[in-house]
């Protein structure tokens, strides 16, 4: 399975490493050549040696998307730092290239919800954070720490 990730920030690079570790083919596209270094954080070998692909370019550039392999991608993740960019390129992946699984990271809950209803799979970290904070406050701060397994390690 080829997974194309556009926007290689903290979220994109972490997902990329996890997917590569699970044995998938992973291709990353980012405007900033420096973001390649973020991909290799914690890796024992270079990203390419581990089978990863990295392309420098913008998600709106057709040539860059094609070079990054969008035409044969099975999954597409839009995780740049711009909501509007993510929503536009996710729709391009969905409508023009008919990528089977398309997910867009959208920080604005209202737009995330509306586009979700239009048939675009959106993930809204803001909503997740809001829910966690509300839950934490209601439970009196007892479970405000990280999830269970990391608590054990501490």
């Amino acid at each position: 399975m080829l997974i194309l990730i556009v926007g290689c920030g903290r979220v994109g690079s972490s997902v990329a490493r996890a997917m590569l570790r699970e044995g998938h083919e992973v291709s990353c596209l980012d405007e900033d050549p420096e973001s390649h270094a973020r991909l290799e954080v914690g890796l024992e070998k270079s990203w390419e040696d581990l089978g990863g692909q990295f392309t420098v370019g913008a998600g709106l550039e057709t040539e860059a998307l094609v070079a990054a392999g969008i035409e044969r991608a099975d999954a597409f993740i839009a995780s740049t730092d711009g909501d509007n960019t993510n929503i536009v390129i996710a729709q391009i992946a969905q409508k023009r290239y008919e990528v089977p699984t398309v997910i867009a990271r959208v920080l604005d809950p209202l737009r995330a919800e509306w586009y979700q209803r239009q048939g675009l799979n959106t993930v809204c970290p803001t909503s997740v954070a809001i829910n966690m904070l509300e839950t934490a406050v209601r439970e009196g701060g007892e479970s405000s720490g990280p999830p269970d397994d990391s608590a054990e390690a501490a």
Partner: protein
Amino acid sequence: MYIIVVGAGKVGWNLARELLEKNHEVTLIENNRRRYLTVEQELEHNVSYGDASELWVLERAGIQRADMVIAVTGDDEDNMLICQVAREKYLVERIIARVNNPRNRQHFDLLGVKPSVSATDLILRLLEHEVPEYGLVHLLDLQEEQLEIIEMLLGSDSGVTGRRVGDLQMPEGSLLISVLRSGKGFVPTADTVLEEGDEILAVLDPGKEDDLKILFGPKGNGSNGA
């Protein structure tokens, strides 16, 4: 009409001013605080501060009752999505989007954001018109209707000068509709003989430009290779 204009740059500001002078009701939305304060000195309550890609900002501006939304920010993604949301969520009947980078026009089309206007494309069209060597000039593109009208100047090396219109093998999906000669236009008949310096107007299906260039352009043989 109630018109929402997004982006108070040079284009948006002037547009809002013109529309107000034509007695339209206008809200201009700008998300840069400093720019907003500058424009607000002139346009006062007709300017609103906020990021129009956020739904509540559009709703506060009264998008539910807007007759038209015009997105002219310097950011193509913003313009695309503001118009997409205006049409699909708020059912605004008319939208106009500005294309900053002409290479993004395909994305506007894909998202159904039409019409879109690109200053670069417009200047290129004018350039084509002012510089006849450029060959074929697009006079009108009706994308929805799948038709375009083009103009071409017949140079001294055109293969069709001195020939009868009736003898031309016009490519399928194209029709010669008018000839401009010495500043006057007329509808040609089969017996019209084309001359050097004539400008021909043709209506055609999209994608037929190249066939027409071959027929009417330099070294064209007027019979499509026969």
